[in-house]
């Protein structure tokens, strides 16, 4: 791999930062068109420059990379962190996805946020997000990556709580931040562990240290698991996924950009970026695989019973992120990133489509009050349908190639930890695929098909062109985005492109892995379960519309459990939230107020005052009392003397 110095990288990063500053500080005085121009142009230019820089990496087939050392950030006491940026094959994909999808969503936002009084603040936050996300994907050391990691978390917090007058929205923002913070502690400690052995935190340095055996395997596993704790926070995996559904409180373009296409995939990116470590730790990889698989299945089941259109998509995102972790867990790093990319296309499109619906219905998000929108919003409907086909794994759509690549790799390889790991992941992934097709078509049918259940008096307005075009672009990508990795047609471009930067996992290929026919059979299996899900949704939501109600009543307990998201939020509310709150209250009231202050500090003070009161009684000014004390004293003295002289 050859390094070339390029100062374009910092410009790619700084453009959105400039946009954020301009709109943040002066946006309130800017006319609206200027805010939009600054917001969109900064990201657009960044995208253009990224394409220019990426071209260099593309022509080298990922063999070469651009690097830039911006400045030395922290250097003291044996630690030296510089703000360094690297554009290699992996970050090329990420930068293009981030700036490209961001640009499209910025444009869409012009329409979606049109009437909002805090228009400039919105664009400022959105640009700040792109800035942070670019630091995350271009940073060439863990601390710099962490800067972006926390930065995107901040923007997510600010944008979830964008309409902060609503207490529920503000609370959702806080919840996201704190869930992420819990993960971040894992990330931090993972870094600490690595630094102890490698004495560096630059990714190249770590790769060298790991390769040279400077880090014992057990500590590699520990570090990987700790870093993965960070990933479960950022990428909403069990047990820290709970913030993502609540994050839907933010404006819908934000859900599309941050909570579907880009930020939430940071954990997957991080694992792929550090594949040289994860590949050496079968245990950590197995944990990643299993957490991903269980999350993929678990979140998909919740998606079945939600009626809020954005909530369905949110659980779908959690579930799809689970797939990506299966990918990077079973050692198919390129496949994980591939699915990250296609998911960015179709999920962004789905969210923006749902946004168009919500916008058209003046803020309605309940699918039970939608229906029949197909005719009123054809543009939205068709793009939404394309993306639904993509996520459901319909053959030749992007999601088909990327999801199948992951499932195939899980099926055809075996982990050193045990053969059951990948098999179980495959099973859960396949089941989740069926459920995905079901809940997605349920959503489509409830929203766009059937009779309109829109309350009277709600005027449905057709989406504006500024919102339609982004939908079209993303839908197009959702259809064709899988072609660079259409492995069953012998297109392995994507995998080869990433080959120089991701590691080869420590897994065994099963006997049938080399047979092209078995890959076809596997793909056929996923298509079949997808069809099953589709057929069920078709039957229940188009043909026998009384079916869902009947089933919900028939299996009431199961239905309630799923509908209420397995009561996980309620459990967390008791532990740890309430538990910590009362613990803190107890510490304050008992330890601080009662023991330290009451007993130890004011105690002696009261004792001194008590003594003072007694002393004061002695000097009351009352002659009789004085005479009494003189008498007592004198008698005592006499007795003492008498005793001393031997008289008594």
């Amino acid at each position: 791999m050859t390094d070339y110095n390029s100062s374009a990288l910092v410009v790619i990063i700084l453009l959105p930062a400039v946009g954020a500053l301009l709109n943040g500080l002066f946006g309130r005085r800017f006319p609206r068109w200027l805010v939009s121009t600054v917001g969109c142009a900064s990201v657009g230019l960044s995208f253009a420059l990224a394409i220019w820089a990426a071209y260099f990496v593309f022509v080298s087939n990922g063999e070469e990379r651009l690097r830039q050392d911006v400045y030395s950030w922290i250097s003291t006491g044996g630690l030296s962190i510089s703000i360094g940026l690297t554009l290699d094959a992996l970050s090329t994909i990420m930068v293009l996805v981030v700036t490209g999808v961001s640009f499209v969503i910025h444009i869409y936002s012009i329409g979606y946020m049109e009437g909002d009084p805090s228009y400039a603040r919105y664009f400022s936050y959105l640009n700040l997000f792109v800035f942070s996300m670019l630091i995350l994907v271009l940073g060439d050391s863990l601390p710099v990556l962490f800067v972006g990691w926390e930065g995107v978390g901040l923007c997510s917090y600010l944008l979830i709580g964008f309409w902060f007058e609503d207490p529920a929205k503000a609370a959702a923002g806080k919840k996201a931040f704190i869930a992420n913070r819990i993960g971040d502690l894992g990330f931090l400690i993972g870094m600490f562990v690595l630094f102890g052995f490698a004495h560096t935190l630059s990714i190249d340095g770590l790769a060298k240290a790991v390769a040279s055996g400077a880090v014992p395997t057990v500590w590699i596993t520990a570090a990987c698991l700790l870093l993965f704790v960070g990933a479960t926070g950022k990428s909403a995996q069990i047990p820290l996924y709970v913030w993502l559904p609540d994050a839907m409180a933010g404006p819908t373009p934000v859900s599309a950009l941050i909570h579907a296409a880009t930020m939430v995939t940071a954990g997957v990116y991080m694992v792929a970026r550090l594949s040289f470590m994860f590949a050496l730790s079968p245990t950590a990889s197995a944990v990643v695989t299993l957490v991903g698989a269980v999350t993929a299945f678990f979140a998909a089941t919740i998606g079945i019973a939600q009626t809020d259109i954005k909530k369905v998509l949110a659980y779908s995102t959690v579930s799809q992120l689970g797939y990506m972790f299966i990918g990077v867990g079973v050692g198919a790093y390129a496949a994980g990133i591939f699915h990250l990319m296609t998911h960015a296309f179709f999920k962004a499109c789905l969210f923006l489509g749902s946004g168009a619906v919500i916008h058209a219905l003046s803020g309605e998000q309940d699918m039970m009050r939608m229906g029949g929108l197909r005719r009123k919003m054809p543009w939205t409907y068709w793009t939404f349908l394309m993306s639904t086909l993509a996520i459901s794994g319909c053959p030749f759509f992007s999601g088909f190639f990327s999801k199948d690549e992951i499932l195939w790799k899980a099926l055809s390889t075996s982990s050193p930890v045990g053969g059951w790991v990948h098999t179980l992941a495959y099973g859960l992934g396949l089941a989740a695929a069926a459920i995905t097709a079901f809940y997605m078509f349920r959503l489509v049918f409830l929203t766009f098909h059937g009779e309109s259940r829109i309350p009277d008096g709600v005027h449905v307005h057709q989406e504006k062109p500024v919102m339609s075009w982004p939908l079209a672009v993303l839908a197009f990508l959702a259809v064709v985005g899988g072609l660079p990795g259409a492995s069953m047609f012998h297109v392995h471009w994507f995998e080869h492109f990433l080959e120089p930067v991701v590691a080869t996992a420590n897994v065994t290929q099963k006997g049938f892995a080399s047979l092209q026919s078995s890959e076809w059979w596997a793909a056929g299996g996923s298509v079949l379960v997808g069809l099953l899900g589709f057929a069920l949704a078709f039957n229940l939501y188009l043909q026998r519309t009384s079916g869902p109600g009947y089933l919900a009543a028939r299996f009431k307990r199961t239905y309630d459990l799923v509908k209420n998201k397995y009561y996980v939020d309620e459990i967390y509310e008791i532990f740890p939230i309430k538990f910590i709150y009362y613990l803190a209250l107890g510490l304050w009231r008992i330890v601080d107020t009662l023991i330290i202050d009451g007993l130890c500090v004011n105690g002696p003070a009261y004792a001194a005052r008590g003594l003072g009161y007694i002393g004061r009684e002695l000097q009351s000014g009352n002659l009789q009392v004085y005479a009494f004390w003189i008498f007592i004293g004198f008698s005592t003295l006499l007795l003492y003397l008498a005793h001393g002289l031997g008289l008594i």
Partner: protein
Amino acid sequence: MHSGFPILSLLLWLPLLGAFAILMIPSREKGLIRNLALGFSLVDLAIAIFLFHGFSSDDVGRQFVEKWSLINGLGVSYHLGMDGLSLLLVLLTAFLSPIVILSTYKAIDDRVKEFFFSLQLLQVGVLGSFLSMDVFLFYVFWELMLIPMYLLIGVWGGQRRVYAAVKFFLYTLVGSVLMLVAIIWVYLEHYKATGNLTADLFTLYGTKLSGHAQMLCFAAFALAFAIKVPMFPFHTWLPDAHVEAPTAGSVILAAVLLKLGTYGFLRFAYPLFPEAAAFFGPYIAVLAVIGIVYGALVAMVQPDVKKLIAYSSVSHLGFIMLGIVALTPMTVSGSLLQMVNHGISTGLLFLLVGVIYERRHTRLITEFGGLAKQLPWFSLCFMVATLASIGLPGTNGFVGEFLVMLGTFNSSVLDKLLGGRAYTIALTTVAGLGIILGAVYMLWMVQRVFFGPLSKDENRRLKDMNLREAIVVIPMIIIIFLIGLFPNLFLGKVQRSVDHFVGDIGRRAGIIETVSNDTKHKADKLVLDSPEAKHDRDH
């Protein structure tokens, strides 16, 4: 390094000159008094910046030294100097002074003359404590701080100001009296051993004390400083003092006075009694970590914003103490930087609370809600302070916390002190909970104060920050990002002093041989390079 011009004296005594100048002015000339105080503090700041600029980062010894004999027979001298341990704190003190003064223009309208006189006197006490290199001189300044602070709380404070002031005074006094005993003890022991009466700190560093005496003396110093920091369980004066003190008092208290505790460990307790420091290290570390978690938890349930910030200080200062105990170049640099960071971010939080208190005359969280709508600029500033406080990367708080945590986790000194690698890992991990809880209590407070509907009518009439308030706040915000993005500007200045300090203490405490190879190498090299070492070799 001796410089011809007594620039440290100028820095130190200028506020006193200001204090007397203020005394000359009739009480009714409030504006003149304020402007005069501001003028003096600005000149002082200019001097401090000049000193920072002139401070040589290659020199591990004290710079700008002034030394005159004060009481010949007793070996007490007027000995001022500055090294990497005090440089940043002196700069912080001088930087905050004009900001604090400007912040009081409206808030303090009663006994203005006396107020600024006290403030200037406090400045002298603080600067003197940081600059003194003679133990008795230090003690005089240390006690001198107490009186103006007592007055600031007791006269210009809130409703329970007398209780808070007395509590502050007595708490601190208990510690300082014991410290005085220990100072005299060391002073006499040194005399017994060498026949030389001297209160010069660096001569006393070499005093050989019996193990028993070292333990007692360290305990006395440590208690005095632990109360000042404050470390759990000696912290209960702080919430009361903060809540009752006027804004200016709270800012100085949090930003500077607490740092005298942590500074005291670095300047006095550790170098004077290194072996005892190693012995007590584990206990201090455990108390520091308890403080981190406990302070954060208790901060979470406070109904009063100022009290919340006060408890958050207990938590933040725990990190600083942990960094000192871990005793590696990385952690001590991190602690020094974190002292400044806490001063800036907590100082800013108190200033902002003061801004809103002047308008609403309450600090109860429940009295607010939805302020972000009404006061966008104020909310933005508060948000920045919050993010700095919870250590978001890009702000100053991250750099300090990261250095302390990274260094502590990998500190072989701490491994040795605690008796095992596993203990270090466990302790650091528990300390890490403070990072999570920090986000919890701050963001929860922000949510309740700034977000949600603007439900209280009183809050609908609030005005956003005015120009004066903006001028107070903006420099702090600039510093937050300056340190966050370019920490090397400050770390670079102190690095060699810190390396020297760590090497010196480690060697004398007998824990150096377990220090990791590269640290040891560096420390040895520094000891060889240092002027003291050269001096020692020559004799």
